[in-house]
C-alpha cells in the first residue's frame, strides 16, 4: 500500500468498514509512514471540527414568520 491508497481508504477505515485483511495492510502502512499517520489525525480532526460547527442553539422563529406559515395553512385548508 502507498500513501495515495492509504488516503483512499481513510473513510472506510474510520467507519470500521475495511475487511480485516485490508485493515491489517492499512495499519501496517500507518506504522511505517509518519506522514500518513499525521494525515489521518488531521482528517479525524476535520470531522471533529465539523461536529463543533453543528452545535448551535437555534433561535426562535420570528413571530411574523410563524404568522405567515399558519396563515398559509389557513388558506390551504380553505382551498381544500
Amino acid at each position: 500500500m502507498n500513501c495515495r491508497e492509504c488516503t483512499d481508504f481513510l473513510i472506510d477505515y474510520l467507519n470500521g468498514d475495511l475487511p480485516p485483511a485490508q485493515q491489517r495492510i492499512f495499519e501496517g502502512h500507518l506504522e511505517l509512514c509518519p506522514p500518513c499517520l499525521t494525515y489521518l489525525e488531521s482528517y479525524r480532526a476535520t470531522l471533529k471540527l465539523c461536529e463543533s460547527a453543528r452545535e448551535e442553539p437555534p433561535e426562535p422563529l420570528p413571530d411574523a414568520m410563524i404568522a405567515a406559515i399558519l396563515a398559509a395553512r389557513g388558506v390551504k385548508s380553505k382551498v381544500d
Partner: protein
Amino acid sequence: MERSDGAASEADFVARLRAGDEAAYAELVRSQGGRMLAVARRLLRSDDDAADAVQEAFISAFRAIRSFEGGARLSTWLHRIVVNAALMKLRTRARRPEVSIDELLPKFHEDGQHVDEPAEWRSPAQLAALESQETRILVREQIDRLPADYRTVLMLRDIEGLDTKETAELLGVTPNAAKIRLHRARLALRTLLDPHMRARETL
C-alpha cells in the same frame, strides 16, 4: 418509561394535527420552526432563501401529516422535509464561480507518496480548547469555499447528520457515489483548514 410516555404524547400530538387542531399547528411551528430555520440557513447561506425554505417545508408537512407514520420522530421527519426544501432551492440558484475540487485534494508523486509532507495539527485537546464560536465560524467559512456539490454532501452528512443512504437519495446518486463525494469533500476541507490548524501557527 419516560420514552414511552414521550412516544405516547407525540402520538397524541400527531393525532391533534391530523384532526386539524389549530393550537397544535401553532405549537408545532413554534417548537420546531427555529431548529428548521437554523438548518435552512446553514444549507442556503441566505436568510431570505432560508425563510422561504422553512415556509415551504411547513406547507409540505401540513399537507403530508396524514401520511406521517410515526416510525420516525416528528422532529426527524420535519428535519428531512426542510433539508429537502433547502436542496430544491439550492438547485434553482445560479452557481457561483468555484475552485476545482482537484486543486483541494492531496497531491501524490507517481509512486503514490505525498508530495507535501502533511504538517502536524494542534492536538485534540488544543482543538477542543479553541474558542468555540470562533472555530465554528472558521469551519463554516471554509466549508463555504468547497465546490457546491461537495459542500452539499458534507453539510448533509457531517453537519446535518444524515446517513449515507438518505444523503444519496436526496442527491439522486448511488450510496457509493455519495460516499466517494463525501470523502473528497472531507479531504478538500482538510486542505482548507490546514493553514489554520497547524500546531506551530496561530490563527
